[in-house]
């Protein structure tokens, strides 16, 4: 018997409202089945079960707000006899480890670890410390000799027009500060001649009905996933002072929400998808992200991030790695540029691909191999079908 608990779906999530159960007591469930829908600041998320079993008991009524870690249901494994069922009333203080969606990717460690002053010690009230962290203000810059820092000092020091940050913005702020403080990034960039791939794609699309057309973004994500299979050292996490590489490739795809913000849900198992499947899955993921209909696994399982700011017209994207991931791949816009081939100067459609990687886990040589393989695949797009 195990407990299914409210998962953490992001650093900004403390609780969520259980909107609707998708199973009933006595139902047989399989790993990956949707148990319930919960509403968070990221929209309605379908939460999934992580093991096979039978729903023994639902512990929470619909439309109840539950903190992260609250037991929601009891799941009995197949072989387990009903008589052995313990009463659910005294729940163990901590949820079983197997229940927690891995990895707790977006939970930054206590911020003290990041901002503890290297020299001396500033006297400051807890509220002042908290506010200073939120606003990214250095306590040293506020402290006067010998005096204690209070909340009002921080508020005075804050930029006057700073608007209150949304929960999502705060979560991004925490993760990015942590990333830059803890991850020694290195950056590599290479221009890729996209003319052959785009020409190949146009010919492919011309022979297909509109419903089956492939967009360049899908081709690029397919190419990144395939290049990661060739250079797996960039796919995974930095855990406990060591790289924790993953066989499955779940790239987080940066998707802009129309109103505000950005989410990077995982395109789960992208490594196993052919080009058609990549296009279908990506299109579906984008629609569901914007409709606020993601699954819990898509918000917690990213093994690497792909940012394609090409739509905004920037040439290169130098990203900040999302901890504890090992790398971020930035894809710039595709534009016409002068291009030397042999001793001739021509014009080609060119995309600048950039890799930000964690130098603790890999060296530039590994990163270069990845960009080289990405380039090679895009010069041979038929390999991406």
């Amino acid at each position: 018997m195990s407990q299914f608990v409210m998962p953490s779906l992001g650093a900004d999530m403390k609780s969520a409202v259980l909107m609707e159960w998708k199973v009933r007591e006595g139902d047989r469930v399989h790993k990956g089945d949707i148990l319930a829908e919960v509403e968070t600041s990221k929209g309605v998320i379908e939460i999934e079960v992580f093991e096979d079993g039978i729903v023994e008991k639902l512990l929470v009524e619909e439309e109840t707000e539950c903190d992260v870690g609250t037991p929601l249901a009891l799941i009995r494994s197949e072989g387990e006899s009903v008589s052995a069922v313990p009463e659910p009333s005294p729940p163990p203080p901590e949820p079983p480890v197997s229940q927690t969606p891995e990895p707790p990717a977006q939970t930054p460690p206590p911020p003290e670890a990041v901002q503890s002053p290297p020299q001396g010690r500033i006297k400051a009230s807890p509220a002042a410390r908290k506010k200073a962290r939120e606003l990214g203000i250095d306590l040293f810059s506020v402290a006067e000799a010998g005096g204690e820092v209070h909340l009002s000092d921080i508020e005075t020091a804050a930029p006057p027009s700073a608007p209150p940050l949304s929960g999502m913005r705060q979560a991004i702020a925490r993760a990015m500060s942590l990333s830059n403080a803890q991850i020694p990034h290195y950056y590599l960039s290479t221009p890729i001649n996209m003319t052959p791939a785009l020409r190949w794609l146009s010919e492919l699309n011309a022979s297909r009905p509109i419903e089956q057309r492939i967009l360049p973004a899908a081709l690029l994500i397919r190419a990144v996933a395939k290049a990661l299979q060739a250079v797996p050292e960039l796919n995974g996490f930095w855990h406990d002072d060591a790289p924790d590489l993953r066989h499955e490739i779940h790239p987080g795809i940066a998707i802009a929400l129309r109103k505000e913000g950005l989410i990077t849900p995982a395109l789960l198992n992208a490594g196993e998808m052919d080009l058609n499947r990549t296009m279908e899955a990506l299109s579906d993921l984008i629609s569901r992200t914007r409709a606020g209909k993601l699954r819990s696994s898509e918000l917690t399982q990213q093994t690497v991030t792909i940012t394609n700011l090409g739509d905004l017209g920037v040439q290169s994207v130098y990203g900040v790695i999302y901890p504890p991931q090992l790398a971020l791949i930035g894809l710039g816009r595709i534009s016409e540029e002068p291009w030397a081939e042999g001793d001739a100067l021509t014009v080609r459609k060119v995309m600048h691909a950039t890799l930000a990687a964690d130098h603790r886990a890999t060296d530039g040589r590994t990163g270069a191999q990845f960009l080289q393989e990405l380039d090679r695949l895009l010069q041979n797009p038929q390999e991406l079908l």
Partner: protein
Amino acid sequence: MTKEAITDAIISQIQTVAPEIETDDIRPDAHIQRSLEIDSFDFLKILTALKEILGVEVPEADYAQVDTLAKMRDYFAERVSI
């Protein structure tokens, strides 16, 4: 089918993929994707839905002829049967 009916069909499909866009936001001569922040996936969805409704499929080679509401309306008006 009248040009007005075609325009209505286009606007309705734009609003299906991007519900927050008001009819008044869609200016006839503005670039649809750039002015309304419609990405390539949304644009393809709009054209796919319009194929269902109007029976006309826009090849990729013709995208430059359908990049504003006015151009898209004229493009379909010339090709829609009846």
